[in-house]
């Protein structure tokens, strides 16, 4: 179950799954992420992150996409507790 804690995508650790709550960005960003399938209510998994404000890889459905650090910072997610089904 989501534990009610809302954080940005960059704050969660690698391998953590979470539900997208909100995208704090302008129209352009929302539409870009929407096209990637990243929209509120979707479940995404952070696959890896890169040091030095590098891109963050996330898994959505069966695809992996890399998004910029800035973008990840604008995606508000609610982590799903580990052990709660994959």
């Amino acid at each position, binding site marked *: 179950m989501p534990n009610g804690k809302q954080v940005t995508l960059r704050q969660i650790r690698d391998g953590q799954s979470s539900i997208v709550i909100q995208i704090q960005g302008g129209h*352009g960003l929302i*539409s*870009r992420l*929407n*096209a*990637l*399938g990243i*929209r509120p209510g979707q479940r995404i998994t952070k696959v890896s992150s890169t040091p030095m404000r590098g891109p963050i890889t996330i898994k*959505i*459905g*069966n*695809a992996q*996409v890399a998004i910029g650090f800035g973008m990840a910072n604008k995606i508000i997610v609610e982590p799903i507790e580990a052990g709660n089904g994959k």
Partner: protein
Amino acid sequence: MKILLMGNPNVGKSVVFSRLTGVRVIASNYPGTTVSYTHGLMKLGEERAEVIDVPGTYTLEPTTKAEEVALQMLGTGDMVVNVVNATNLERDLYLTLQLLERNIPAVVALNMWDDTEHRGIHIDLDKLRQLLGVPVIPTVATTGQGIKDLVESIPKATTPKAPPRSRDERWAVIGNIVDQVQYITHRHHTWLERMEDASAKPAGGIILAIAVLGGSFLAVRFIGESLISYVLNPLFDKLWAPVILRLSSFLGGDGLLHNILIGKIIGGEVNFIESFGLLTTGLYVPLL
């Protein structure tokens, strides 16, 4: 006729393109390999059709430069072959729906079809055809499977009368379609599939590569050594040596020609290593 190959990034459009036209384009396992477009010709019955490999796009509301290019090109085509990653229907159908709203004849190629089986994804093709209203062809572009069907389906492309939808409506429609056509079962991977998975990852790939190289080295050595000891050596000793000896006595056991061809006869026998003649050591050393 102008055929546009459209689809999300990294679904295999360029490989489909190569298969259709025979033109080699650089395809790699990264999204966004095709930034500018490539075009080629293919035979369609009697006609020649122009095929354009459009850069990958997630949406027709352009959000990047490559997507703007894709959108502009859409206006110039006569029909669209929408390449879809069959293992990721939900996301890829978003573009498909947008294309269908454009009232342009379309065919959907469900690429990476082999991977769906592997992942335990089952897709009801007839249902999908019915819901989308266009031909849907499963393909595996990397092996060429389904490409013939795809070519045959191009003249049968249909223009579904899809009403323009808003973003949320599209996702709702997609959710509905995916619920109806796709179900996922858990299945155990066969060892072959495990090997395939391992070979595609750096660590497993290196180990497999070393194993294959080592294996082929051992195989070559084994084959070579068996050939020498069981085939070539007996052949030289049993068949060739008597011929040489006869030739030697025919030439009188000495002389210029004898020395060139046979060399020295050591202890009444031919020594293939030390005789130093064209027909003795000259044959034996290069062969063995």
